[in-house]
């Protein structure tokens, strides 16, 4: 039995806002094994992105702790164990496509040969070798996000963190990029943590789907996805796919119902408490 690659114990996060402290996450505990593809899904504002940022040591947890590859999240970040893809492509305007992909290698001080060859190989992997000298604005949204995926892979990260990377794209582009992402992921063997709003996307990509509750975010349910791999587009038409989509949808639905049931009661309590 090997130790999980990502292990969260009692993770919580409270943000100080103008209206007082807001609890974004409460007492999350979970483990992710090496090579898994975990999707995190939940209603808006449930702290999905915060959870991803805590794992990547971009936000500190208020309570609990995270171990990544047997180290603290900070050490894992300093060891460059992470590759990150954000919702926006976050490409630097002043760098061409290949220069953007090269950035992590420059930061890590890779060899000259690596700096020359690795970005080329990565652009081939995401099918953009013909666009290496273009500037980001000359590319479509889908292409920009592919560049950002290539950049995330530059340092052979063992963990890929993706924060709704395809959220801004149209359905057709999104489905094509889902396929490409699966291919890239299986080639790299990285462990993936993927935040999304799309139930179908989560089911199609993942080994397990983590369903989160509304704020303060907790883990409601973890749905294992037993669809066979490699997953091709035809998986989306299979009965088992629909069953799993329904299972995830129902776990998501339970909560708003709960919140809706709670809200009037809270109102009553306040009304009664008022003089």
């Amino acid at each position, binding site marked *: 039995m090997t130790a999980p690659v990502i292990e969260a114990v009692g993770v919580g996060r409270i943000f100080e806002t103008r209206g007082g402290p807001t609890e974004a996450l409460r007492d999350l505990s979970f483990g992710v094994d090496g090579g898994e593809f975990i999707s995190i899904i939940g209603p808006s504002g449930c702290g999905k992105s915060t959870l991803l*940022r805590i794992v*990547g*040591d*971009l936000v500190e947890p208020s309570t609990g702790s995270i171990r990544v590859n047997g180290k603290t999240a900070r050490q894992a*970040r*300093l*060891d*460059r164990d*992470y*590759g*990150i893809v*954000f919702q*926006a492509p*976050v490409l*630097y*305007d*002043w*760098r061409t496509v290949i220069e953007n992909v090269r*950035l*992590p290698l*420059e*930061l*890590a001080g890779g060899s000259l040969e690596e700096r020359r060859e690795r970005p080329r190989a990565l652009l081939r992997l995401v099918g953009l070798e013909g666009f290496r000298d273009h*500037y980001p*604005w*000359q590319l479509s949204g889908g292409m920009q996000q592919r560049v950002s995926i290539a950049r995330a892979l530059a*340092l052979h990260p063992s963990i890929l*963190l993706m924060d709704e990377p395809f959220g801004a794209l149209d359905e057709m582009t999104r489905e094509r990029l889902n396929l490409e992402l699966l291919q890239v992921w299986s080639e790299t063997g990285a462990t993936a943590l993927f935040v999304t709003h799309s139930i179908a996307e989560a089911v199609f990509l993942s080994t397990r789907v983590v369903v989160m509750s509304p704020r303060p975010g907790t883990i409601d349910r973890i749905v294992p996805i037993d669809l066979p791999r490699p997953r091709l587009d035809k998986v989306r038409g299979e009965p088992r796919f629909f069953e799993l989509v329904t299972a995830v949808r129902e776990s998501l639905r339970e909560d708003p119902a709960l919140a809706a049931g709670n809200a009037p009661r809270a109102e009553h309590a306040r009304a009664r408490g008022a003089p």
Partner: protein
Amino acid sequence: MHERAERHSVEKLREYLPAAIVLIAGVALWEAVVFVFSIDFYLLPAPHVIFANLRENYALLLEAGLYTFTEAAAGYALGCGSGMLAAMAASRSPAFADLVLPYAIASASVPIIALAPLAIVWFGVDQGSKIAIVSLMTFFPTFISALRGLLAVPAPAVELMRSCAATPRQIFWKLRLPHSVPYVFTALRACTTLAMIGAVVSEFFGGPVKSLGVYIKSSASLFQTRQAWSAILVTCALGLGFYFAVALAERLAAPWQAERGEI
């Protein structure tokens, strides 16, 4: 490729055509108004009279123009240069930047030109006082723009750097500094105009005869308006040349924007 370049230059020409027509029409109108209303030349000289004077006084105007432009350029280099350096220093501590930024913005709205007579007391009647005024006039706008550019980096862009374990030095050189380039050039372009104004108006308060400001002021007070207009035209030409030189530098320094047609 060649065809595209050709079409590009034709489009460029078409772009500038309206401006050229307006210029020619404006000069023609000016000429016509002076002729039709038989306006005295000392009130408003006709364009052909000014052009004749320009040819006549060519050598003197060139010398005066060079003198004044040297002040403007030296003050500009000093003011913008130190503005950029100060912004780089201030950006190291956002808390310090927040502290000084309101004062910098307030200083930028002070009419520094009002200090010109004092500058003559402090730095003498020669180029020194004008360079000081121009430096002061160009310092604050450059400082403010550069500081904004260095600090207004989108949060995810910084997170990307952090996720790659970038050092603060790397974040500065590979993210903040290039991000500030368009901001800096916005100020650098605006400062070319400020520099010319600063130099010429400072000379109104005193300077050698062979400088544009003194020449404009003395010829105007002697009703030698065609001389004054000639010097004003030289000032305009120098200002435009200065502006376009900086715009060209921007194209070279920020090719990613030039290709997008944002400059």
